[in-house]
């Protein structure tokens, strides 16, 4: 679908995005620190592309998605969508920009108002952003219901009368109402049964093709991301560890965290599952309120070396189209002479099975 080599302008351009949530404590509620949910994230998304965003719970995926749509006032950096700096738009300009960018949420149950009918829910954005008359709105609602595979007869029913997969279709129809160009899908299938997930993913792909949509697809399901994404960003503790084209990443992850994450995914193949070398990471993700001084992954990295504990590695292009934030690839002494041997030596502690 996408030829990255062609010089097309990105639809979404994010530079140095920071989103800190202040921590207040004591009886005076003094500002004593910050949860650095997103701490310097940069990436592009091309028109028509699906960028996968993966990483463990709490690493900042949803915060990135919400910051992109200006659901937060960001702490730093810039977010350009279709040439507009979303982060600095005034209220009225923001309202005008909203139709272009939409969100599909994880929990279709919680994101739909239980007292509104399906037609009301899908039509709500039309009420807010158009001055269409009732007939025109209804025609659009039917069109959207057709597009997501909901029977028109259901228009006057309420969300609780639908299954999880159907509710997700309602959420998608609403997101499509204003012809957006960009949709943040935040774990859109996580709450669905395996047998229903494929239905929703196929629908998202069909709609992308039909309407030329651009997606940020947030998920912790690495197999599904491999299926749907063109490129994938792997986040760890508020930062991007690696951003690579899909096939390259899954075939040969470069960042030690991306490697560990992929190796932890259980494969539905008993022979493979029992023969595969797995990297079992020790310990837990540190708190984003108190990240390590150096590389955010240094407390668990099987390949950590001295520099990692002192200096945060920046995301840099280490192979054409592949961006990695790791000293193994930037520090010549580490990558050259010690890189390989460090890796081996530390495999002993990181690898079991």
């Amino acid at each position, binding site marked *: 679908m996408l030829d990255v080599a062609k010089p097309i302008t990105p639809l979404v351009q994010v530079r140095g995005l920071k989103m800190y949530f202040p921590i207040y404590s004591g009886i005076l509620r003094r500002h004593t620190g910050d949860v650095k949910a997103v701490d310097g994230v940069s990436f592009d998304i091309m028109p028509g592309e699906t960028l996968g965003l993966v990483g*463990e*719970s709490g690493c900042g995926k949803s915060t990135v998605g919400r910051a992109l749509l200006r659901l937060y006032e960001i702490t730093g950096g810039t977010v350009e969508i279709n040439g507009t700096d979303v982060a600095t738009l005034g209220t009225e300009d923001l309202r005008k920009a909203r139709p272009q960018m939409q969100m599909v949420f994880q929990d279709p149950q919680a994101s739909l108002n239980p007292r509104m009918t399906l037609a009301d829910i899908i039509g709500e954005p039309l009420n807010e952003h158009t001055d269409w008359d009732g007939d025109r709105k209804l025609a659009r609602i039917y069109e959207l219901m057709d597009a997501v595979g909901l029977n028109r007869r259901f228009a006057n029913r309420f969300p609780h009368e639908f*299954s999880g*997969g*159907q509710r997700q279709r309602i959420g998608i129809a609403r997101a499509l109402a204003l012809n957006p160009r960009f949709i943040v899908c935040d774990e859109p299938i996580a709450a669905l*049964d*395996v*047998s*229903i*997930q*494929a*239905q929703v*993913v*196929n629908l998202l*792909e069909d709609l992308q093709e039909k309407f030329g949509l651009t997606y940020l697809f947030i998920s*912790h399901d*690495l*197999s*599904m991301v*491999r*299926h749907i994404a063109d490129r994938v960003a792997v986040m760890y503790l508020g930062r991007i560890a690696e951003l690579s084209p899909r*096939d390259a990443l*899954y075939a040969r992850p470069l960042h030690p965290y991306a490697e*560990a*994450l*992929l*190796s*932890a*995914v*259980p*494969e*539905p*193949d*008993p*022979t*493979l*599952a*029992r023969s595969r070398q*797995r990297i*079992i*990471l*020790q310990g*837990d*993700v540190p708190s984003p309120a108190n990240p390590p001084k150096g590389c955010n992954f240094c407390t668990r990295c099987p390949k950590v070396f001295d520099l990692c504990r002192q200096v945060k590695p920046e995301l840099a292009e280490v192979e054409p189209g592949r961006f990695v934030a790791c000293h193994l690839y930037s520090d010549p002494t580490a990558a050259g002479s010690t890189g390989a041997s460090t890796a081996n030596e530390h495999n002993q502690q990181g690898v*079991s*099975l």
Partner: protein
Amino acid sequence: MADGAAPVLDVRGLKTVFRTRGGEVHAVNSVSFHLNPGELLGVVGESGSGKSVTMMSLIGLLPSPPADVRGGTVMLGNRDLLKISADELRDVRGAKVGFVFQDPMTSLNPVFTVGNQIMEPLIRHMGMSKKQAQVRAAELLALVGIPDAAARLKSYPHQFSGGMRQRVMIAIALACDPDVLIADEPTTALDVTIQAQILELVKDLRQKLGMAIVWITHDLGVIAGIADRVMVMYGGQVVEQAPVKDLFANPQHPYTRALLKTIPSLTGEREARLQVIEGQPPIMTGAPAACPFRDRCAHAFARCFVENPERRAIDGCEVGKGHDVACHWVAEVAHA
């Protein structure tokens, strides 16, 4: 895994119904399975297929009403758990059968220390003194891989991460050296790298302790990695049961086949389009007089709508011992 040895747990014809305003929900419909010593039985199925209700029924954890465990036998050794008194059952739960649930936060008590919660069953069921229990609790916490175990006994659950809390739950479940460990989606709420740690721990514990385990999950990847045998549930019934390699290499039931095709692969060929199972999971009201998968099944024929298929072996083994499947199409066409 010793074949021929008497099973530690033998469940036959278990039936559980919920009485609701919308009618009776047949959550568990004539479920039979057994567990051999040292074996890990994987149970898969989508949400609502009856996995949890099956396990809660056999150990008497469902409030009645609305639940009504209507029939069957649950033999643990030579006792039928459905026939013994509530007191006896409580002892069984504490000492013979260990439980680990999906959400470690809701199953640990936030106001007691982790140490207290591990010590409690040791004092109650094993007759240990407080001092003995404390020593054993520290051992157990170390066994499940919590560093600095003796000191961490004083911590409260909220001071632990999700993965650590699940380790504590496993420590509690193992406290009295149970014959059977039932783990209900114990890693579903955890991240994959933490899940990998827990799965590693369980493999390790099996080697050290040799207990039999029932492991419930909806993740076929997890099953592939740890199970010896697998039972697939759909609509409150066991639809297929087989040794793990057979199930993945030679799935029989149309639901199992479709399920295996619908999950995208991490390493294999990347499919342009995902296979789907059309339709929705069944609503289990009314007595099940037809195949629960009929509305979504590509092979369904007239018989499927009027008769609920029984489990039949496809390899000549006794049902439950080899590879069996409950499907008219398999019986009449695929394996006629």
